[in-house]
């Protein structure tokens, strides 16, 4: 078990999504859009913590395909309750990242 002093030494990035259809689509998109990365999903019932290390990209088109309906990137905000790392919001994708690797 890690101590509290050590746990801030991490490189986790990624969205914390409220439970539901969009959260599931984001989990699938995270896998597809970040093929070389291990995606970890923690289920906290009310929310899903979807994480990888250093950088995660989510593409609008991938989420749209996973949902099976039109999706604009800004709609992610309806369920995006928090996130680890920094955020970069673009029209066609959203990116979570750390500038520094610890």
């Amino acid at each position: 078990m890690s101590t509290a002093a050590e746990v801030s030494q991490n490189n986790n990035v990624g969205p914390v999504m409220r439970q539901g259809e969009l959260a599931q689509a984001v989990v699938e998109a995270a896998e597809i859009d970040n093929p070389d990365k291990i995606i970890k999903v923690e289920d906290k019932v009310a929310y899903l913590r979807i994480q990888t290390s250093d950088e995660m990209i989510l593409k609008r088109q991938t989420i749209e395909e996973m949902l099976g309906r039109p999706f604009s990137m800004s709609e992610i905000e309806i369920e995006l309750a928090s996130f680890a790392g920094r955020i970069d919001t673009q029209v066609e994708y959203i990116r979570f990242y750390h500038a520094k690797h610890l």
Partner: protein
Amino acid sequence: MANLGRLDWYDIARNTNWQPTYVQEDELFPPQMSGSMGIPLPEWESYDEPYKQTYPEYVKIQREKDAGAYSVKAALERSNMFENADPGWLSVLKAHFGAIARAEYSASTAEARMARFGKAPGMRNMATMGMLDEIRHGQIQLYFPHEYCPKDRQFDWAHKAYDTNEWAILASRHMFDDMMTTRGAVDTALMLTFAFETGFTNMQFLGLAADAAEAGDWTFSNLISSVQTDESRHAQIGAPLVAILIKNGKKAEAQKMVDIGIWRAWKLFSVLTGPMMDYYTPLEHRKQSFKEFMEEWIVTQFERSLIDLGLDKPWFWDQFLEELNYQHHGMHLGVWYWRSTVWWNPAAGVSPEERTWLEEKYPGWNATWGTNWDVITDNLLAGKRELSYPETLPVVCNMCQLPINATPGPTWKVRDFPLDYKGRTYHFCSEGCQWCFEQEPERYKDHLSLIDRFLAGMVQPMNLAGGLQYMALAPGEIGDDAHNYAWVEKIRAARQKAAA
């Protein structure tokens, strides 16, 4: 008509800085209101907000969020959640709405100040939406508890709390006024949007949502996590601001405001969120301990992002990590002991099974905090409930306004940090609270804690009845044990079984 992509016009549309010709720059942006630390206007124009949103998008998305929250409420209104909920859970709701709902309006004025006086156009754009977000949070968190008012008048405190001098509200108001209503745009952004909203609100609006979902209160779970989706966006006001301050040699100033914000938020959460998560939420519905939620949200996530932006860990970080093990246990003991002075019914949360859980999550709990609860339990078992009420007042910190306490045991660890300033002696619970005061003593010096007011004769008559009247706690609102002491009978049965 062809539509431009958002990013093709966003920067131009929100770049509303212009050269004033009728007034000076300092008249348009008074330094006291903008708090811009002498950083020139072109530097502020380099502010690049990471979470970009346009007003048409905002309206569309907020509409969907509200449709979701209100339709969940409507669908579950006949589910008898209130009737079936554990009384400890209802106490979570009462404490939450009372301490939070009206503070959201203060947050709205804070956002309005940033929207008007922030020198960075991007900050003003984000804060305009942030201001509307906070009005939403005030309204929705008054509307949702309103349906419970006819069933239980303690819910009236969702609206009433901030109009009173009840002690927990004195503490909340002292902190929120400090970070929301009395500082310029830059300091407000650092303390409120950065320290408080990217950090601590996750605890109250997502950590607690996980417990709520476990407890089957989907209305509340959905409501507060929806609130946090707004926070998640407008909290990003702080990050590009930190970058500009560091670039312009103001890192120390930024660090100081962030540190004050974190320390002050921690103290308030230790009395509010800690007892909710580790004592009021029914044992079978506790997703994680308060400490585990703090580690998830504040240590693993928030502290990491603070370092990424180029700030340092606060100087008090080791002390803060240490306090995660004990501070809220003391706060809970105090709230339960002085239970007639709060607008909710604190759950003791110390049945045999709950004590086993506490020992597992906080090794050593039984040998320390447990010994205090042993005395209370023994008195209640002996039918001496009067001994489970206080006869004196606690010593209260002149910064966080909360009782000074530390882990009980063979050594006396409670320590007062006194400070003399301009002829008055102030008492603090910790180095952190004393340090906050010392940064700006003139700002804080005239505030009187509830105990100061009592000693000054402002509370009359000088007894419990006078105190309750001063705090506006009417009959029917005064707190008592959430389970009407049923847990004591469980302990009696367990002891009889063990003896047989």
